């Protein structure tokens, strides 16, 4: 199916040119990186941008690198780039795991992680890993740079804290100084490519501290300090896990739709929470387990 209307296309060579164009067109422009979401929206007429600004020539945004104790992921890094990166495999195993569950190989070759959090569709896979790692989003506009903590990034389904004249250059993730391990669980209708009907990210940190985030069970992904607090104060035991599972009912608000009922989503979120938690704890004890 072709895109049934005309639009302009620019492919700037530098970040400066890109934000200049964006400054000129504002909300009438869309940034094109992977385009896996945008192309579908344009074909179906949900979005009718006047101009596409293709940023794929801006090489500095293709990079995954360590800067001091932060890991930087550029806005052109695809999910399969994440899967191929030794740095991601070692430092951000939860993101490595989540990236492998995004859509299919074909889509992962194109789709970018930054595009995923910019589309901010409730069922995205990147949010929970970035939430538990307290990532920071870096934007750029003609007015300069801005940093937004991931906690404040998601405003509503498909709405983020980004301004019309801004684009995301990269995401930075502080790497904990001590030992840590994460785990991601995704609810899917089968093993093939699917949009998550619920997902859970758990990060196990040293000193028996935990970060927990949920996705696809509300308009925005959500980190739960309430559950973290319970785990952090009471420690991991059969009882606290049950207590935390019961608490999930007060934390998330799943809906019934064409993909699943809210009852099944709620049940699965609890099961996945327990599995992610146990898996994160296992990996914390035996980091070599992090291979999948």
């Amino acid at each position, binding site marked *: 199916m072709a895109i*049934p209307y005309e639009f302009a296309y620019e492919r700037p060579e530098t970040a400066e040119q890109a934000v200049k164009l964006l400054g000129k067109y504002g909300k009438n422009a869309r940034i094109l990186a992977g385009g896996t979401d945008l192309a579908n929206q344009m074909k179906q007429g949900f979005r009718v941008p006047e101009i596409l600004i293709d940023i794929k020539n801006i090489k500095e945004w293709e990079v995954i690198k360590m800067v001091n104790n932060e890991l930087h992921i550029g806005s052109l890094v695809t999910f399969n780039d994440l899967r191929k990166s030794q740095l991601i495999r070692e430092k951000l195993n939860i993101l490595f795991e989540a990236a492998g569950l995004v859509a299919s190989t074909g889509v992962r070759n194109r789709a970018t992680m930054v595009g995923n959090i910019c589309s901010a569709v409730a069922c995205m896979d990147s949010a929970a890993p970035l939430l538990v790692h307290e990532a920071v989003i870096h934007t750029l506009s003609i007015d300069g740079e801005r940093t937004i903590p991931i906690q404040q990034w998601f405003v509503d389904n498909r709405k983020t804290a980004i301004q019309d004249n801004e684009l995301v250059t990269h995401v930075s993730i502080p790497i904990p100084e001590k030992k840590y391990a994460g785990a991601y669980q995704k609810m899917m209708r089968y*093993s*093939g*490519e699917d949009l998550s009907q619920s997902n859970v990210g758990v990060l196990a940190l040293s000193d028996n501290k935990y970060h927990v985030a949920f996705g696809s069970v509300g308009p925005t992904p959500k980190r739960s300090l309430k559950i973290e607090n319970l785990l952090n104060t009471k420690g991991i035991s059969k009882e606290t896990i049950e207590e935390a599972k019961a608490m999930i009912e007060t934390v998330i608000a799943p809906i019934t739709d*064409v993909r*699943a009922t809210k009852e*099944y989503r709620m049940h*699965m979120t609890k*099961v996945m929470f327990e599995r992610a938690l146990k898996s994160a704890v296992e990996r914390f004890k035996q980091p070599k387990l992090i291979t999948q």
Partner: protein
Amino acid sequence: MKAYKYIGQSVVKVDGKEKVSGAALYTDDLEFGPDLLYAEVVEGPHAHAIINSIDTSEALKVPEVLAVVTGKDFPFNFGLYMKDRFIFAQDRVRFYGEQIAAVVARTPQAAKKGAQLVKVNYTPLPKILNPLDSIKEGAELLHPELKNYEHVPWFFPKADTNIAHHRKIRKGDADKGFEQADYILEDTYEVPRYSHCAIEFHAAVAKYDHSGRLTVWASSQSPHTQRNLFAQALAPLGIRHNDVRVIAPHVGGGFGSKAGVTMEIIAAAIATKVQGHPVKVMWNREREFYNTYQRLGVVAKLKIGVKKDGKITALKHDLFWDAGAYVEYAANVVNAVGLSAIGPYNVENASIDSYCIYTNLPPGGPYRGFGYSEFLFGLESHMNRIAAHLGIDPIEIRRRNIIKEGDLTAYGAHMNPNGLLQAIDKVAEEIKWNEKLKSNDPDIALGKGFSLFWKAPAMPPNASSSCFLKFNEDASINLLVSGMDLGQGFLTVMAQIAAEILSVPTSKIRTENPDTDRNPYEWQTVASHITWGCGNAVRKAAIDARDQILALVSRTKYLPVDTLYLEDEKVKCTTHSKFELPLKDFIINGIQMEDGTFKGGPVIGRGVFMPEYSSTNANPETSQGGHPNVHYTVGAAAAILEIDIQTGKMKVQKVVEAVDAGKALNPSLVKGQIVGGILQGISTALYEEMKFDHRGKLLNPNFTDYKIPTALDIPGEIVPIIVEVPQPDGPFGARGVGEHTMIPIAPMIANAIDNALGIRIKTMPITAEKVCLEILKKG
């Protein structure tokens, strides 16, 4: 017995290289030059409504729009078995998304723009989205004209109701049979609608030229039937059968969706309004789901009575089919099931009522299995439940009841030779039926499931196949048939049949998808009949050619004809070991005699096959007396299923399926059908589900939310098994296997779940969610 050289060999597909390399052209790939026009369909946003008016004036103002056509331009009924369908909706729409009009333009964009500007005024009518509502007293009549529709003689529409056909079986005395039973199990099973999900969309290009010729290029399973229906529907415009030519390029999957006629008639009709221009109509994925055929939904009420030893005393099967808005094809699915809903069992007392019911959902139609998957879900679930109640092994109870050669079918004809017992034995052995399963993981439950299957081709008693076989100077052959290679390997197998009889290697036989002007008649590539039916036609054509060759050599070389035979592209003689005459020396130009004259001429074989013993003449109250089905293909399947008891997620660890192919003409292709059928069966059992909202609008016309398996979802191990009990009237003993392979899968899965968890699921699909919620309910 003489060993075969080509039959029974896994000859490589004749079109394999072309397809694998991407060279094969499909309808959308064809070039039609600058005159090509594009049509965009206008759809109705109501499941049931009166069309008050259609305003096309704004659409016609769009630059590059040439024409807008509506139902008024084509006030014609059409249909395969019952003429209840229209090219465009006439006075009313009957399903959400039905075509109302089409805008024809020089570009797809202009056509689309025009289509958005067509204004239609509707008065909504009460809609019926469920077959049981449709047969209630006082239900809105969806086809008030039903009593006037032309239909085949074996349909029995009920005037002034929504029942378009009722197939009734009365065999023996069911009431008495139930009285004799020691145990009776009665329950209801539900199967929803499904979509074929062929990778290639429906596509049609039609051109009506200034000589009055209508040529249609279409992705099709049925080129000749399409020609017939186009000619019938457009006859009021002065179009005759010999004016219509259907050309069928490669097809990217059919599964029944491209049988008969659906959207192709839109292209054919529009072409008559823009004479001289080819017009293209392309469906998209959404329309593939809601405006082609869908597999019918069914509510099946089943009652079986048995003796203590498990022997069936009576069976009552009432099937209420959600056949959709138009049933011109669907009614025959209902008919086929009515005839066969006893399953592969010897049942003395049977009562079957199969109702074809109109609803305001998209038209039902043929889908791989033709209704058998649907009724076997309940029947094969029921057999396990009865066995459990009686404390008999589920396979043993089947052994005690299966239909054998010579037993009477539901309609009183004799069962054909078959290898059902062999299939059961082989499957039971391969799955190690008697070994208990043990799970090492407390979160994983394991279960074994088993199911039998049977299916007959559902076709008119006079459905025919034919073949022209033309030799060329070098003794290569052009084999002209009109069956379609849908990926199943049909053309390859036809080449093998001709090769075997004529001793010409398959590499020298060119056989391609048809052009109805060039290739002789074929009914349709459906019903899994094509290997058997068209194979017989090819066999006859090859024998015809062989007989001409041997007769010519006999009269010119003065050798008795019964001493002559073909080997390695030569005529040889049993009594003169040195005699050999290469075919290429005479096959076109004849044999020269001593006086310089030539005898013979181009050898052209001709073969026609019609099952002349088939008949639908029967008592409509009992269905006794006719011979509506030519034969049944049978088999068995079993699986080991693992279930995550916390999430309900299932994985088929191993699946085994045996099918009686009669003779596997190409074993590799038969195994391909088994593997493919298993996967499609697993898909419908576990994942696929059409979801309609209260308006009758399909909510998931896409692969985002209508799931078919990927490579990650295939079973751990698949074991295809071929059984060969020859079909007496099949080519080299072959009978069809294509559809059958998916039929046993859903009940097999349901039985495995019951075996693992003691949970009986009676509605399809059996999603992880459904299983999980049942586990939670059970506690």
